[in-house]
């Protein structure tokens, strides 16, 4: 791929969700690019369509909902919306991977965590036999799970929330994807753990040269993590720009009010 060609190029994406009595346009004409190795943030309040956009790239929809996608999602020049389910299945977890919001419910409770990394490796790589588990243990080590060889045989309930999110990140990076989508990866975690998880994501992105699409409602998460930010409001991108400019000189009224909503700790005159 020549330099300057985006890894992911979304053009005029529209997502319509059919419910029992109406059709909701959750995403309306969204366009953006992600360059190879670049980190892009999506910020907006709940229900603004950022998660639907993220899932649209994976062509995933919540169980039992009927989502219709229009527009183009060009990944390495191929329109993902024209792929067959089979082709898309080979793409997911291999070239595009995703980390979800709630680590407490995102792991299968009846399988060991090792087995949950094994199955994605078996699906997308040529590894077989003991090499699979060996690789899973390496991955657990890479995301900072202590004593990974022994803990691979444990079940999800034996891990804390932060540890589980690390495991889910291990699953996501298992096949060295080109694009990692992180949908509110720290929202369900303690503040101290949040910072650890964000640092982990940053480090992995640098080590592996992945592109990162970081979705959050929190400007604090975006700052220092990404180069570019898209602000979404009611299904549309209302403002886009590089992170420093956008944080210091927001143009759109909505961005200003979002920034104003971030709680601040005043250091001057604080209780000593």
């Amino acid at each position, binding site marked *: 791929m020549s330099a300057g060609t985006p890894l992911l190029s979304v053009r005029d994406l529209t997502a319509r969700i059919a419910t029992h009595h109406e059709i909701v346009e959750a995403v309306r004409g969204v366009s953006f690019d992600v360059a190879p190795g670049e980190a892009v943030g999506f910020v907006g309040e709940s229900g603004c369509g950022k998660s639907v956009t993220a899932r649209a790239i994976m062509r*995933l929809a919540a169980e039992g909902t009927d989502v219709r996608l229009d527009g183009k999602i060009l990944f390495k020049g191929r329109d993902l919306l024209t792929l067959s389910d089979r082709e898309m299945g080979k793409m997911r977890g291999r070239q595009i991977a995703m980390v979800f919001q709630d680590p407490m419910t995102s792991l299968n409770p*009846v399988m060991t965590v090792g087995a949950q990394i094994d199955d994605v490796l078996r699906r997308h790589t040529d590894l077989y036999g003991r090499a699979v588990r060996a690789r899973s243990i390496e991955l657990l080590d890479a995301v900072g799970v202590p004593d990974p060889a022994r803990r691979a045989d444990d079940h999800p309930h034996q891990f804390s929330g932060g540890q589980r999110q690390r495991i889910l990140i291990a699953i996501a990076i298992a096949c060295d994807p080109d694009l990692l989508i992180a949908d509110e990866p720290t929202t369900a975690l303690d503040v101290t753990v949040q910072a650890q998880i964000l640092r982990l994501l940053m480090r992995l992105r640098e080590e592996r040269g992945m592109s990162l699409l970081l979705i959050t409602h929190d400007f604090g998460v975006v700052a220092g993590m990404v180069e570019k930010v898209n602000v979404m409001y009611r299904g549309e991108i209302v403002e886009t720009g590089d992170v420093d400019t956008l944080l210091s000189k927001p143009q759109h009224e909505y961005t200003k009010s979002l920034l104003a909503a971030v709680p601040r700790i005043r250091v001057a005159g604080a209780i000593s």
Partner: protein
Amino acid sequence: MKRLIIVRLAWTFAILLGVSFIAFILMRALPGDFVLAAAGTTSVSAEALDGMRAELGLDRPVLEQYLVWLGNALQGDFGASFVTHAPVLQELAPRFFVTLQLSLVAIVMALLIGGVTGLASARLRGRVDWLVRAINGVSLAVPNFVIATLIVLLAGLYFPQLVVFGYTPFAVDPLKSFGNLLLPGLALGLAVSVTISENTRAAVLEVSNQDFVMVARAKGLKRSTVLFQYLLRNAATPIITVAGLQVATLLGGSILVETIFAIPGMGQYLFDSITRRDYPVIQAIVLVAAGVVVLINMLVDIAYIRADARVRL
């Protein structure tokens, strides 16, 4: 696990003791007794009847009779049938095996029918869901003896070459033996399949909405892997529970179904024995049935532990 089994065995003993006592009292509370049933319509003098009662020990107080029975039972002696005078256990064993075989056929059919329809209902939704639930509603409303009679009637009318009645012993021809039990098994298992179907549907729907299923799809796993490793393994626990609870339904249902299909099983034997007030036989069957239900419940608990690492009993 060992402690669990020991505790359960102690409970089992207590339950069987209670069940045997209740069954003993209830049978004697029924109007008429063995002597009257045996005499039938023939006129026998009251003295002769009393003589028979004294011979069988039926003239003693009920509690005393129970303690005598219990004492013998604890030593493994369940007495002899009043009718055939053969030891109860010797009479019961082959019949118990037949009922076991029939129940096995019935539960396998119920799991197959219920599992497949419940899964289809939850996964395909829409019309399939509607149809499955309508059929389930009707099947649940119709008692098994009506279904059994309908099966006999329809099979007899349209497939006269099929052998509907009777039973081939397993030792004679295992394949034919199970073949004979397919229709009775269907009659017996249909009601159970409804319960399994509805529970499978509910369990699969609930698991489908879990985040880890979305994660599994985001991993690009094959549909079959997502279905078996993620959906069904998690939906299995409630389905196992229901299937285990339904074993009692099967044992109860076998009484009528065996009678209609002329299968020489425990259910038919119980039916005959109640009519004849053959107390020792009834007592033994009740004990065996209770034992089976308790045993199955224990197996279900063990299955929980195997299926889900979070369960500690």
